[in-house]
């Protein structure tokens, strides 16, 4: 069962291929492609967040700034400048990475709980900017964004074409994160998470490793946000607000912090839950999400995947 946590052994590879096959077939057996595409965007977002908290031990409480900021940039470029989607997305990711660099340089000067508060404050400042700026449509955000043609050739307006585009990007991000986590660089990140003073004493320039992780994570979060604009045709203030930053934390925690499959499982759970609740519970959705948050922190800290791994380990020890 280690593949859920690490994702590289043989069982893991087989499992990922099966999961991918299910995702490829899903739209043809009656699953609404836009829902899965939306969940995949949030899965990218949650994976970027897990890279930072799960593998580096940095809790960013402002990740919505990168997600929502990139969404605004992409939406604006598509709507006003009529750029092709891949360029608009690249610009969004670039903007997110640049913002990540600035925020990161400020935030990594503090650790732990202070790091969380600093990122929260900086993200709040940015959301204020997006509320005031002239190009973002204020409280309404940017709506009715056309998806355009990929590379100027392939129209994405059809839901199936879009779905497979999002799925392809998702697979790319998945492999990239897998590569990062298992690279020597990823090992240093884990060393920092486990024992920062020791990593410093071994001669690693901890701050540079952290900053790079922060920028990478911000860029990937931006990619998730930019893709989401194509999927849902809109970028709103909701994407940059602190509630969104909290939501991505919930996804990661619920799925399993620091496990490989966790953020994806968590993203599908939370997005599914929200879609299910929004018709039935209306404004109570936030309250229910809050309750799940509290329960998760008090009694379910390992998350789905983490609990599964722990259960597996207990069983192996008994045998």
């Amino acid at each position, binding site marked *: 069962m280690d593949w859920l946590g690490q994702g590289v052994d043989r069982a893991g590879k087989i499992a990922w291929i099966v999961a991918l096959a299910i995702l490829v077939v899903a739209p043809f057996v009656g699953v609404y492609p836009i829902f899965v595409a939306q969940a995949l965007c949030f899965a990218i977002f949650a994976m970027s967040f897990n890279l930072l908290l799960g593998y580096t031990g940095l809790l960013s*409480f402002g990740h919505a700034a990168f997600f929502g900021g990139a969404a605004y940039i992409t939406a604006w470029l598509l709507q006003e400048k009529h750029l092709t989607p891949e360029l608009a997305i690249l610009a969004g990711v670039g903007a997110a990475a640049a913002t990540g660099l600035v925020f990161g340089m400020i935030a990594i000067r*503090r650790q732990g*709980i202070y790091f*969380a508060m*600093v990122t929260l404050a900086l993200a*709040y400042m940015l959301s204020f900017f997006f509320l005031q700026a002239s190009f973002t449509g204020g409280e309404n955000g940017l709506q009715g964004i056309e998806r355009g043609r990929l590379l100027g050739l392939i129209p994405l307006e059809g839901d199936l074409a879009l779905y497979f585009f999002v799925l392809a990007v998702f697979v790319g991000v998945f492999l990239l994160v897998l590569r990062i986590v298992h690279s020597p660089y990823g090992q240093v990140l884990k060393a920092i998470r486990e024992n920062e003073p020791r990593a410093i004493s071994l001669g690693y320039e901890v701050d540079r490793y952290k900053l790079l992780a922060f920028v990478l994570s911000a860029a990937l979060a931006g990619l998730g946000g930019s893709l989401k604009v194509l999927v849902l045709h809109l970028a709103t203030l909701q994407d940059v607000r602190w509630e969104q930053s909290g939501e991505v934390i919930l996804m990661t925690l619920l799925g399993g912090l620091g496990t490989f499959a966790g953020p994806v499982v968590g993203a599908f759970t939370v997005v599914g839950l929200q879609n299910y609740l929004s018709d039935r519970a209306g404004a109570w959705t*936030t309250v229910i*999400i809050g309750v799940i948050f509290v329960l998760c922190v008090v009694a379910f*800290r390992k998350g789905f995947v983490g609990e599964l791994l722990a259960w597996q380990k207990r069983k192996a020890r008994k045998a």
Partner: protein
Amino acid sequence: MTEVFGVPIQALFGQLMLGLVNGSFYAMLSLGLAVIFGLLGVVNFAHGAMYMLGAYVAWLGLDGIDVHGMHIQFNFWVALLVGPLVVGLVGVVVEKLLLKRLYKLDPLYGLLLTFGLALIVQGVFLQYYGSSGQSYDTPEALSGATNLGFMILPNYRGFVVAASLVICFGTWFLIERTRLGSLLRAGTENPALVQAFGVNVPLMVTLTYAGGAALAGLAGVLAAPVIQVTPLMGSNLIIVVFAVVVIGGMGSIIGSIVTGLVLGLVEGLTRVFYPEASNVVVFFIMAIVLMIRPAGLFGREK
């Protein structure tokens, strides 16, 4: 009319006064955060929700509520007692039921738990009272204004600043100069040893959290007449207060009081000279302080 840097002196002092009022709230809230963090190691994200709760207790009291057929109605002065009491009780429940389970873990879990609580409280109030603001009449005895010669001071604002100063320094005195306070500080350093001396540390922790929450509730009651009472009033404020806490550092009580007041004044000044930046100036200062003095102005970290 006299002018300072091209700004009428009346307007300047008016904005400074407003800044001082905001600063009073920053000071009270960051003080509560610092006290809770000191003993529990929890950054209380729900602090904003508790501030909001205090304001709603006052507002509901003025309107009158029916509980089990009894009609309860109370004015501002009673609310100053009832507000903190209600919020403090909520704090007791939260600590006993939830926070207690997290003390052995990474402090990040405390932040996440209280974040979830903030979502719940805010969501419930949004559901019942909507997002539009409710106004709360200034109490009779404090309405009107006093002409100080160089400016006209609305009485209630003066009262808020004075009350917050009394509360803040009262808290400081309690913690730094009394026996109870010295036990609290000892509990921060070494809870096991304090327990060994026969002090009921878990009770002390519960009361500390309740006390911090009550401070937030009291700030909420005081804020009700000067701002619109909305379910979102706390969540917007708490992020600014977090920035204040980062600037001041949570190590010192006096530090958080002074930082809160000064940043309120700075915000007021910014509103006079460059209004566009007044909402973000605190965050700029935070970024600069982090660059120059990462531990915060009064911080003792590392």
